[in-house]
């Protein structure tokens, strides 16, 4: 059954053709992306995952911003904001933000590391299939990039009220957004094919 490629969006079957690095194949019927030739190798993706993990740590430990209002100082980390929202009676937004900006990226990075580490060494992880499923489901709910834009909007809104200074956490969120997009934008089917090929040899 190899040699065929089916469009996920409209079910049209296509004949596979070889592609150059970075090239994208599109469906002739609906125009959706069929397949993308990977720019990064599994080793390269593993390196990106490690870098993203470091940024994730910094983004969650350091304050995002410092505020100064008439001599009163304040600063907030990402978790500080979550805890305050919870205490002030909006548990829903605390849970939503924690899930989409902390837990989803964390699980994504852990699952990516778990999948890529053995692959880069030529083996397939024992629970490869489960980890890939987790990556796919959780990926839909991971939103550090939206949070980054939200932080910028919040800074501007505060601008009239107080002096605001962006802190290390904000820059780390910026870097994390970029790295996690690189790590998770890979073609899932491609990674499955790589893993199957590794298993066979």
């Amino acid at each position, binding site marked *: *059954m190899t040699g065929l490629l089916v469009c996920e969006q409209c079910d049209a079957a296509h004949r596979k053709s070889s592609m150059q690095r970075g090239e994208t194949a599109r469906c002739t*019927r609906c125009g959706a992306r069929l397949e993308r030739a990977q720019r990064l190798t599994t080793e390269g993706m593993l390196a990106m995952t490690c870098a993203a993990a470091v940024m994730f740590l910094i983004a969650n430990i350091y304050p995002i911003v410092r505020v100064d*209002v008439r001599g009163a100082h*304040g600063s907030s980390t990402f978790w500080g904001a979550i805890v305050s929202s919870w205490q002030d009676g*909006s548990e829903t937004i605390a849970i*939503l933000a924690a899930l989409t900006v902390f837990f989803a990226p964390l699980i994504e990075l852990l699952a990516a590391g778990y999948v890529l580490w053995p692959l880069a060494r030529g083996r397939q992880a024992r629970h490869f*299939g489960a980890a890939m499923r987790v990556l796919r489901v959780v990926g839909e709910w991971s939103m550090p990039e939206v949070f980054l834009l939200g932080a910028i909007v919040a800074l501007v*809104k*505060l601008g009239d*009220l107080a002096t605001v200074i962006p802190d290390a956490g904000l820059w780390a969120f910026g870097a994390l957004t970029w790295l996690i997009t690189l790590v998770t934008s890979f073609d899932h089917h491609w990674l499955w094919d790589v893993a199957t090929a590794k298993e066979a040899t």
Partner: protein
Amino acid sequence: MGCSHREGSNLSAVVTARALGLLPCAQCGLLCRAAQDAGDLSCPRCGGTLHARKPDSLSRTWAFLIASVILYIPANTLTVMRTDSLFGREDHTILGGVVDLWNGGSWDLAVIVFVASIVVPILKMLALALLAISVQRRSRWRQHDRARRYRMLEAVGHWSMLDVFVVALLVGLVRFHSIAEVLPGPGIAAFGAVVVLTMLSSMSLDPRLIWDTDDADHV
């Protein structure tokens, strides 16, 4: 096997996986042979359940969509954020937040927030309803455009979460009890729920249904 017109190009025959008796695995992409009795098959490579189409796609899409439309009303009428400062107490709604940004001179951010919080949710709900209705009526109207619109929805939907993050951050940052304080309002929870529900709705919709009318005549 069905045929489809591609605008400006010649007739091209399209063969679907279904017509070939193949089931592509949604998880890992492996092409499996469909069984005659279409029971619950699982993928031999990854163990995922194989479905020719997403199960109960339309009913799930409608259920999530209707719930989100209902919650959209409190999301826009209730307070999303209350500010207490030396200048007095103010209640903000979603639209009010955009106006504040605009009046404050940040027209660029005002446009971004307006698009993410107001334009995207409304367009998304309308487009989902349109897609669901046209699929139900087995319409062949502008399939290519509808398919593209669906992909766009999937790509931009989660940006509406922007306002939830803005409120959470402001609440966390502005905690100077005597001078200024920001408190979350009930509207923001409703708004967050609208975003989540519209995302679930578009995830439930199977875009392949848009094209299935092409095959119907031949099956």
